[in-house]
């Protein structure tokens, strides 16, 4: 992260340093991967998810953050190794912690959806019924 402007990667291509300008691409993550969650921003949906799973905190979602891909807010889905873009009608708060909670909620909804690509992959390759 090279800026304090939370919308930096929405408003620019993120090519800031001399080295980045030389190679024509941004170096590193577009968000702080080490930011630990502030549970004060946890949403009711995520609290319900934690309860269903028998967890008392966000567990694996602690590593999920709102990122930015091609000037769109997006969340990385490790199950498909790709970015899921945030619908444009979702208003982004001016706080990374709140944005991260939106990203976590969105990712759960996508991963648990019957339209997730893993559903098709599983049909093709599953070993256990």
């Amino acid at each position, binding site marked *: 992260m090279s800026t304090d402007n939370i919308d930096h990667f929405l408003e620019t291509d993120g090519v800031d340093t*001399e*080295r980045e*300008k*030389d*190679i*024509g*691409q941004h*170096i*590193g*993550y577009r968000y702080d*991967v*080490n*930011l*630990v*969650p*502030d*549970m004060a921003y946890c949403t009711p*949906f995520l609290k*319900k*998810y934690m309860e*269903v*799973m*028998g*967890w*008392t*905190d966000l*567990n*694996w*979602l*602690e*590593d999920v953050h709102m990122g930015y*891909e*091609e000037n769109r807010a997006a969340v990385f889905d*490790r199950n498909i190794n*790709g970015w899921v873009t945030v*619908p444009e009608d*979702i208003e982004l708060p001016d706080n990374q912690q709140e944005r991260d909670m939106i990203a976590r909620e*969105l990712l*759960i*909804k*996508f*991963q*648990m*959806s*019957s*339209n*997730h*690509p*893993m*559903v098709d992959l*599983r049909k093709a390759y*599953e070993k*256990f019924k």
Partner: protein
Amino acid sequence: MAGVAHKSHEMGLHSEQLSGRTQQRFFSATEEENFVYPWSYEVDFDKSAQFDAEGMDTPQINVKIRELMQQGHGTITVKNPMARHSLGVGILNRLNLNFEGSLGYFGCGLIDGPNVHISGRVGWSCAENMMAGTVVIEKNGGSTFGAAMRGGDLVCKGDVGSRTGIDQKGGTIIVGGRTGAFSGFMMQRGRMVILGDAGKNLGDSMYDGTIYVGGKLTDLGVDCVEGEMTDLDVKWLNDKLGKYGLEAPNGAENMTKLVSGKQLWNYDNLEPTEKKLVL
């Protein structure tokens, strides 16, 4: 250096689409609440079962666990695991799984969701490639504890061997006691909390992620540097440790925070050029 970018543009490399490959997958961000994978077994935490693993081999034990999940059991206790290898692996479900005894190598690997409790010890590579859930070990763990872990909480209340969290890509590893040499080697993301002492070359070649140490540091590996502890770090540490009945020996605020110095972040946009030339 400016010439490098110029040259790469001349060769047309920047028209090459390295990102993208967009797939349109529609889902509703406001659709009904569904908290589990579409293929997961419907289990009830209040429905419990137990079985004695003595005389059973590893595949039989793992299949038995799967069968009990299929029958809706959400809490399963395995007695006498007898330190067999590869027990409790590949569980992609919400589940409370208890092992009364010790596990051998590669216990609870590749899991995504379950809460596992092990009353004894574990061998090498416990919870390797763990995706989500919790694994709590009451005694000691072997080397490469949490290797290539991606997410969830992995807790050993005793000591662990060397190369803890090697290639860690996410999640939280907590060690109540000491950890051996080369812990956090090539760590890429996630958090490691060592309440006791850490062995040689801690965090060697770590790319990112955070290591918190409550005891003594033997020495740091290449590109592992001290970071600034924030109030949020301290709160997170106290909350996380408290969930497992642990606490930092001198208080979370006095733990040493270690991060990547990022001096090994070497990017070279000529890499695509080289590939293109080879092809």
